């Protein structure tokens, strides 16, 4: 595969280019320690969700996880409501934080496992299933919180996750890197990783080869859900309040990051390191647009354009795009061939 190493080199090059561009535009202040730290603390939420999307895409058969940000919000909201009804965030700060983290991660795990079970056991198409759960998770968050923002406050441990540095690196960023590292290791060194990628490449062959298909699917979506749960913790830690509709554009951005990282939407290929690099690249771009004083709407426009551009660059040799008709291509919307009637 040409893109195995090439994609990573390209992403590193893009990152360096963006850093250089930022430095040139801002006269060096873009590279100041403060700015770098503030950018690094913004990456983890979206980066974790993007890794979840990547895992679901790798599973193949139209796999995608659209419920990521909804689940992250649900984890934060549910955890805030449940824990603060038992413990007080101001009196017993440490216990509150630990309980908050435990409940949020559990919520994420359970939500993801529900996705996985629905997809694996009931054979519901991932798009439909995660659309449904996306709505159900958001709905549950609305019901639990009554549609209002829920106060988490800044108890000791949580607030240090959101705001403090360790050796000059934001702790949330370190958590992100650690989670990414664990997933990368799991994909590389355990049978699970091999099963996931091979299953994504050819689901039918995987079944005949005796892979534990259901187990792999459930594990994949549960893992993605757990990452959402962690993202929920970081969102709560950084924002003091949690609300059901936080990060409405994260769904697109998570998919954009995964596509930029060269993850194949049809399954079977994706690298965690590329996702991390492309999340960082996107954050750099976002900060650059901020430096230019452009509105959020321009940013949405730019993300849409960028997603389509990367799809064009990654999926389609540009020469063929400019001169169509030279070869008959069999393209289609979803992939009906394997799951259709």
């Amino acid at each position, binding site marked *: 595969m040409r893109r195995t190493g090439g994609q990573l080199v390209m992403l590193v090059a893009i990152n360096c280019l963006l850093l250089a561009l930022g430095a040139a535009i801002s006269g060096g202040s873009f590279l100041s320690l403060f700015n770098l730290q503030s950018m690094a603390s913004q990456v983890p939420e979206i980066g974790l969700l993007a890794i979840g999307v990547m895992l679901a895409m790798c599973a193949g058969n139209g796999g995608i996880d659209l419920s990521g940000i909804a689940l992250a919000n649900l984890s934060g909201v549910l955890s805030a409501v449940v824990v603060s009804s038992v413990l007080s965030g101001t009196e017993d700060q440490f216990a509150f934080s630990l309980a908050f983290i435990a409940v949020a991660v559990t919520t994420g795990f359970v939500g993801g496992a529900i996705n996985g079970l629905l997809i694996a056991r009931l054979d519901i198409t991932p798009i439909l299933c995660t659309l449904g759960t996306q709505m159900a998770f958001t*709905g549950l968050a609305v*019901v639990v919180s009554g549609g209002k923002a829920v106060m988490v406050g800044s108890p000791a441990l949580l607030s240090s996750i959101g705001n403090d540095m360790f050796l000059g690196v934001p702790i949330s960023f370190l958590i992100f890197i650690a989670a990414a590292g664990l997933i990368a290791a799991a994909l590389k060194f355990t049978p699970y990783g091999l099963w996931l990628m091979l299953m994504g490449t050819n689901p039918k062959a995987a079944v005949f080869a005796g892979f534990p298909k259901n187990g792999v699917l459930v594990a994949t979506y549960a893992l993605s859900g757990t990452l959402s749960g962690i993202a929920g913790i970081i969102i709560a830690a950084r924002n003091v309040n949690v609300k059901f509709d936080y990060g409405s554009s994260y769904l697109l951005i998570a998919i954009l990051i995964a596509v930029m990282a060269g993850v194949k939407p049809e399954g079977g290929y994706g690298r965690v390191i590329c996702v991390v690099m492309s999340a960082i690249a996107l954050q750099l771009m976002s900060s650059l647009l901020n430096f230019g004083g452009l509105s959020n709407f321009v940013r*949405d*426009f730019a*993300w849409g354009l960028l997603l389509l551009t990367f799809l064009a660059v990654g999926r389609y040799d540009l020469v063929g795009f400019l001169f169509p008709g030279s070869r008959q291509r069999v393209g289609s919307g979803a992939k009906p061939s394997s799951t259709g*009637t």
Partner: protein
Amino acid sequence: MNASRIEQLQESTARPAGFSLGEFIRRRPESITFVLLVAICVAVAIANPAFLQPSTLIDIGRASVVMGLFALGVFIILAAGGIDVSFTAIAAFTMYSLTVLVLNHFPGMPLLVILLVATAGGALLGIVNGLLVHHLKVPSLIVTIGTQYLFRGFLLSFIGTVWIMSLPPQMGAFGRLPLLQFESANGAVVTLPVYFLILPAAAVVTWWILNRTLMGRAIFAVGGNADVASRLGYNLRTVHLFLFGYAGALAGLAGIIHVCANRQANPFDLVGTEINVIAAVVLGGARITGGTGTVLGTMLGVLLIVVINSVLVMVGIPSTWQRLVVGSFILLAAAFFVTRQRKK
């Protein structure tokens, strides 16, 4: 004729006698939608007799126009095995830019021309979708998520974010033009506007395209199996362009009706309702992997969602529960149809 239809015929000839309820449901999944709809209506009518007032029913009819037009577009794409989430952005884009255009440059433009321009503009944006989906060769979900942001971002950053309260007079008049008007028991005037007729008209056109034209066969064939369809000589490019163009046209029309009906143009409207629409189509029995579904089912699905949305409050369930209920309905319907299918 699509695969499932042929299957139906074969089954009906193979087993002329003996009627099995399971078989019937599997062949006509929209019957479940219908039963569910009736059940909900009966339950609500018992819990709160106010539901049966003509004004409530007309409200439901009025509320289903925009969603119904969207749903027809989504259904035709779903039938071909794709999915579209950009239609709300297309509608918002068309309605707002057209309203601005009419207000500032052509204040005298007749209404018919406005509707035609909206439809054509929507179709154009839809064709952009179709071209991208066909040439980029990626799942249409990802492409249309991209174009949704592209269209909406363009609208909000370059065309405007101002809420237009005073519409051009001809558009406002169209929104109020009554088809049916009477006074209800409590003295309020209840109106069924003329624009309601557009929905049944669009439904009939869609039904005609799907069941009486070659394009309809091509759509179901592509939804059944795109590779086989292209080997049979269907031109996938034409099918994709038609599909997304048609869905875009319906979205453009829906957008301008939304403006006329609400008597204001808000560029932030509509986007965000797409999951409801997809839910409606899926609840109507169309399979998300393509190749199946009926226009009637889609319309029933739309009614179901509109009824759920508008009656929750009537039976005393707080409106905060709306998303949770609709989300669970999607999952239940999906699970139900899948398990039905497996019991062949």
